[in-house]
């Protein structure tokens, strides 16, 4: 151990939590760690977390957790300043990692959204798209989920503050079903399930309720979306259902994005 490290006064790492276009649910996940919350608050200095504290401390921050997508010109600038002030920047949740539900406006027809909701579109400062944080600044780690999983959040925070790589699997929800001994909904019941192409993390929650996965954690590593679409069609899914399925909370993430566009291109009503 170097002399500088041993002689340096130990200080708590500074944690900051930032919000962009989102529902607040992922940062609420931190407050939902009820049992661990006061311990976390003891281990780190919560320097900036508007929802939880009126203290608004300056950077640099050792760890920034970023929730939400970039959808206004001001936010596109704000995220750059946050990146400059952050040693490690982690995106949390589907909005920050994939654009989230508001990224549906990035698809054809999205230009009509503003006048549908706002009688005076000219009062609203918005970009034409809602995009993930990584489209704007380098991201050190992306934690998926809509919302993120509590245990995964605590794993990422403790790993990164201790300088190790977070142990977050990139396999599919299928593996979690197998591990839990849940019979395959698609094979056994013809249920339309996104599990084969969706990243694990929820613990196969929806399948455990007899419901097909709807993609909260986004695409797994190298998913075969085309084959899944074929299987769904065999189980009676029409094209419109396929477009909707791939165009959900993580629909702007590749390759879900390409897959939904592929089914939209074809001009039938199926």
């Amino acid at each position, binding site marked *: 151990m170097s002399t500088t490290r041993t002689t340096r006064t130990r200080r708590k790492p500074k944690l900051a939590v930032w*919000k*962009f*276009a*989102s*529902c*607040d*649910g*992922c*940062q*609420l996940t931190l*407050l*939902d760690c*009820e*049992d661990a*919350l*006061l311990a976390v*608050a003891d281990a780190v200095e*919560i320097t900036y977390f*508007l*929802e*939880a*504290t*009126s203290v*608004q401390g300056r950077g640099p921050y050792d760890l920034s957790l970023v929730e*939400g997508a970039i*959808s*206004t010109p*001001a*936010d596109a600038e704000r995220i750059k300043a946050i990146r400059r002030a952050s040693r490690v920047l982690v995106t949390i949740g589907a909005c920050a990692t994939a654009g*989230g*539900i*508001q990224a*549906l*406006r990035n698809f054809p027809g999205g230009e*009509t*959204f*503003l006048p*549908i*909701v*706002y*009688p*005076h579109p000219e*009062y*609203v400062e*918005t970009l034409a798209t*809602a995009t993930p944080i990584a489209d704007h600044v380098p991201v050190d780690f992306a934690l998926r989920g*809509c*919302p993120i999983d509590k245990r995964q959040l605590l794993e990422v925070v403790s790993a990164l503050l201790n300088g190790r790589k977070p142990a977050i699997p990139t396999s599919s929800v299928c593996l979690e079903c197998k591990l839990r001994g849940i019979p395959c909904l698609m094979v056994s019941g013809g249920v339309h399930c996104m599990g084969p192409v969706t990243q694990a993390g*929820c613990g196969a*929650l*929806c399948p*455990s*309720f*007899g*419901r097909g996965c*709807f993609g*909260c954690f986004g695409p797994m590593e190298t998913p075969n979306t085309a084959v899944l679409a074929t299987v769904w069609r065999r189980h009676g899914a029409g094209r419109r*259902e396929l477009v*909707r399925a791939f165009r959900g*909370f993580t629909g702007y993430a590749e390759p879900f994005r390409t897959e939904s566009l592929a089914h939209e291109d074809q001009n039938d009503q199926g």
Partner: protein
Amino acid sequence: MKTRTIKVERLTRVEGEGALTLRLRDGAVAGVECRIYEPPRFFEALLRGRHFTEAPDITARVCGICPVAYQMSAVQAMEAACGVAVPVPLQDLRRLLYYGEWIESHALHIYLLHAPDFLGYESGIALARDHPDVVTRGLELKKLGNAIMTAVGGREIHPINVRVGGFYRLPTRAAIAGLAERLRWAREAALETLRWAAGFPFPEVERDYELVALRPALGYPIDGGRLVSSWGLDLAAREYEAHFVEEQAPYSHALQSHRRDGSPYLVGPLARYGLNSERLTPLARQAAADAGLGPVCRNPYRSILVRAVEIVHACDEALRLAEDYREPDAPAVPVEPRAGVGHGWTEAPRGLLYHRYEIDGDGTILAANIVPPTAQNQRTIEEDLRVVAGEHLALPEPELALRCEAAIRNHDPCISCATHFLRLEVDRG
């Protein structure tokens, strides 16, 4: 003429992000703007073209603090559109889930967001350093709310088990019965919360709000009924839009709702309580009286007491539902789409949440309208700010700004919801 502007750039301890501008001219409040700079998210637009069965999951994503409220208003509207009535046992299970959200959301607001204002702390976490037992009690209450949502809904944020027609899978009787013991503890903890908060120093304020809340045929409102107000309104859901309008202010990304005649109104705990306090469970009613609350409370600071009363009520009711729970015959009733319009409204923790959908014969959503509680309270919050700022004009700026922020937190605004709310800037010129 002397003008000053006071600005609070970032409101804290609220859900979502907003700011406030206060303009003072010749020693009087000339203007108040609560600005929601939270980016717009276009839910009503992106719902078009989606399937009617997707509405509960999509609209849950409006708000991570009250997703169940969105799910409940959405399923109610869709079931109304399709002419389906969900059997009482499934309605009861939905109500249990919803009480879980009330308990979680109110405990979060009381302990982590609101109480620090009365006790002079910057956060619930700082409060915990001096009063660990108190904050731990709050976190345990919050955790119980989450446990209810997880038992019924699968997870606490964006539950996955709610569907149009009922649920995907019924929780076992054992899983729900397991909540009963914890609910008995929680009911006592809620009573202690109320006794603790009743000792806070409350400013003497009496506001002439038009209180607006649901009133069901029986009991305290949560999942339906007619809409009534302290000024004599009595409406069915389909009549809502004829009496209330949403307008857009140039400084905010949230639409603001008001009565057709332009007057502001109040939804949320104070409104629910003021219009329905005689309908609370006997235990909650007695606890309210012991805490010094009359049948109506018009002091926004004392809303923290009303939230605590509502936790007592929610625990009482949830306990009854948990003890009486028997697995219904089926998790859901079939719902076939039919072309039409459906309205749904329920009492989110922060107040009335209205949904309207138009769907076609295939179940495709043609149009959607969502009016969240904070959009409805925005003008009333601005009115409160005028009163507070007017009374404290002589204070130094940082202290005036703190008072204004606290006045906003009285209403537990959810800015994420309202984007479709708020920056404190005080303009003193």
